[in-house]
């Protein structure tokens, strides 16, 4: 009962006109900074947090929530329209979203992203309010062995993004894995593949690689072919989602939420993994497999919902245990601390007003984002009517701006250029781009978890299968490989060629 009352009270506060204005300002500012490629929600919140210092706790909290959601949505916008992912968790969005935008369906893509984010944010925030203690228990039972199994499952499903050839898909993936090795090894402190270059001790930044491969690689490729195959059609048909779009979107939204929320709640899960899994689930379940790779709306709706749900999921360990599991969550701690709050297991009981105020603020900010962005979609889509030379000149300007803003070093820009050329080379020889980024994200996570698991068990590999969660994840991973093989054996080649099997 008190839960409802507290949430209702929080909502009443959050819905006051002044606070709604703060939410609107927060969402606008957050979107403005969040659209910069390479500047994700964490950095956006960190940059803009001082704005909130001037306000009273309620106003501050709600503006903060607005900035957070705005920063997240900004990343998706550039992914869809410009094929330039704003942060690692919107990389998957670029796969189908940009294809849609190029076919004149940018409006529906943005709309399904916005509404999907809203639906996911709403459900996940409600989930946060009512099932947080249960979810956190599940999340904590994930040890290194379970994480490693989860990573293996994610690897197995990456093949959904392999495209037409297994050889080239695997090569892309291993390029990413190799890049992931660069830098200091956490477990032993040794430098690997750094060749004595201090800048490389830091490893390769995911956003740098993604921006370079997607934005710069593509600019080079389009310029070299004189725009041959990539004529952009800004608007075709309605800017809004059709009945068909709605019909195809609502299930991916729900599934994306169901995948993203628990993964976000895991201390070492990460939003990207939820988006990868959601994408491959949608690809398996779709009734129109031929559209995947050419702009399938499910491929935008699912991952975007997963992304937002996992963002709300990270609040579960933060509010129930005081565990900041992502950079964004850690920045949120700084936000709490300005009110003298010490996040920890006692936060819910000692400061219920503020916690529920935050949850209510998140709900309101989520709504504000939708209110602000749906009418703007028409405007955003017009970006694509800019003539190609100016569009790409602008894209490169903003792509480098993001990198410079996040880390203004000559070396980082050099990496951007080198990876841009790599991206061009990959496109030239029809290698898929996404697996490179996936490899860079998953590789180090998988390696660390495997080594932790085996170290804790003192070298006993059976520890990898010690719990039922791990076993289930291993079985799912095996199924991800075997089911397509079985389908091929049954002669369902049509489906299979869409599932990314090899053509040999």
């Amino acid at each position: 009962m008190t839960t409802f009352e507290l949430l209702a009270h929080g909502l009443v506060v959050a819905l006051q006109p002044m606070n709604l204005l703060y939410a609107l300002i927060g969402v606008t500012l957050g979107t403005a900074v969040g659209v910069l490629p390479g500047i994700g929600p964490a950095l956006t919140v960190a940059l803009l947090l001082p704005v909130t210092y001037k306000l009273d706790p309620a106003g501050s909290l709600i503006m903060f929530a607005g900035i957070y959601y705005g920063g997240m949505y900004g990343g998706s916008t550039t992914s869809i329209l410009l094929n330039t992912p704003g942060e690692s968790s919107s990389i998957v969005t670029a796969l189908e979203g940009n294809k849609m935008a190029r076919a004149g369906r940018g409006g529906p893509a943005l709309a399904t992203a916005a509404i999907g984010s809203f639906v996911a944010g709403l459900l996940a925030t409600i989930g946060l309010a009512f099932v947080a203690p249960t979810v956190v228990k599940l999340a904590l039972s994930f040890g290194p062995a379970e994480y490693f199994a989860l990573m293996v499952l994610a690897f197995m499903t990456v093949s959904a993004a392999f495209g037409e050839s297994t050889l080239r898909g695997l090569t892309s993936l291993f390029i990413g894995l190799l890049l992931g090795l660069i830098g200091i090894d956490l477990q032993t402190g040794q430098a690997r593949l750094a060749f004595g270059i201090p800048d490389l001790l830091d490893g390769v930044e995911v956003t740098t690689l993604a921006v370079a491969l997607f934005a710069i690689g593509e600019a080079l490729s389009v310029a070299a072919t004189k725009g041959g195959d990539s004529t952009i059609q800004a608007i075709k048909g309605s800017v809004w989602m059709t009945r068909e779009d709605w019909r195809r979107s609502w299930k991916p939204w729900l599934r994306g939420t169901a995948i993203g929320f628990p993964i976000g709640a895991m201390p070492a899960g990460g939003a990207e993994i939820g988006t990868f899994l959601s994408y491959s689930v949608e690809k398996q379940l779709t009734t129109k497999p031929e559209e995947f790779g050419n702009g399938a709306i499910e491929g935008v709706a699912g991952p975007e919902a997963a992304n937002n749900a996992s963002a709300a999921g990270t609040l579960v360990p933060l509010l129930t245990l005081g565990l900041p599991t992502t950079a964004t969550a850690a920045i949120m701690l700084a936000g709490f601390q300005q009110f003298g709050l010490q996040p920890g297991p006692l936060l819910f009981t000692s400061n219920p007003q503020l916690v529920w105020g935050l949850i209510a603020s998140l709900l309101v900010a989520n709504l504000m984002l939708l209110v602000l962005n749906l009418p703007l979609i028409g405007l955003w889509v017009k970006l694509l009517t800019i003539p190609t030379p100016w569009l790409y000149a602008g894209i490169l300007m903003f792509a480098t701006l993001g990198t410079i803003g996040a880390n203004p070093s000559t070396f980082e820009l050099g990496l951007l250029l080198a990876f841009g050329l790599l991206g061009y080379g990959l496109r030239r020889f029809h290698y898929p781009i996404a697996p490179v980024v996936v490899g860079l994200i998953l590789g180090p996570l998988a390696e660390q978890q495997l080594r932790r698991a085996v170290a804790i068990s003192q070298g006993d590999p059976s520890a990898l299968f010690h719990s039922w969660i791990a076993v289930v994840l291993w079985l799912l991973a095996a199924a991800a490989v075997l089911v397509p093989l079985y389908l091929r054996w049954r002669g369902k080649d049509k489906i299979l060629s869409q599932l990314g099997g090899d053509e040999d």
Partner: protein
Amino acid sequence: MSETPAKQTTRRPDWAALAIAVILAVVAAVVVWSTARQGGAASYARIGPTTFPYVIAGAFFILAIWTAFEAWRGDFPERERQEISPILWIVGGLAAQMLLLKTAGFSIATGLLFAATARAFGRGPLWKTIPLGTVLAYIVWVIFARGLSLSLPTGPLEHLLF
């Protein structure tokens, strides 16, 4: 899906693809060399810091052989004709921005990138596009550096007004 390997026309060694195979093999060799020099302490994990590099290097060797095989059979998809000069313009623009950023500041360096990119797509002339790009970059700088306190490098132009 849209492109099918044109086996009829390319049934001969695909030299560019063979070059990729060679590159993959070289990368594998470099990884092995670098990892062997680094040495490792395996402790309880048995899987030390050198395990993954060796596994990945091994995978690169296999991929190199596989690529060479497909290249020999001409299995790689057909490639479009490419023009070199636009690529050089964009690469030149990025390099100019990278090298000039610290001295000339964000606006001028990024203005050059803007103009070079436009040139790559056939728009010019540079004496018009460079100032245009610089002005645009300057507006962007004002918004993000002054308005949103993003740290962007400054140069003479930025010091002029702020």
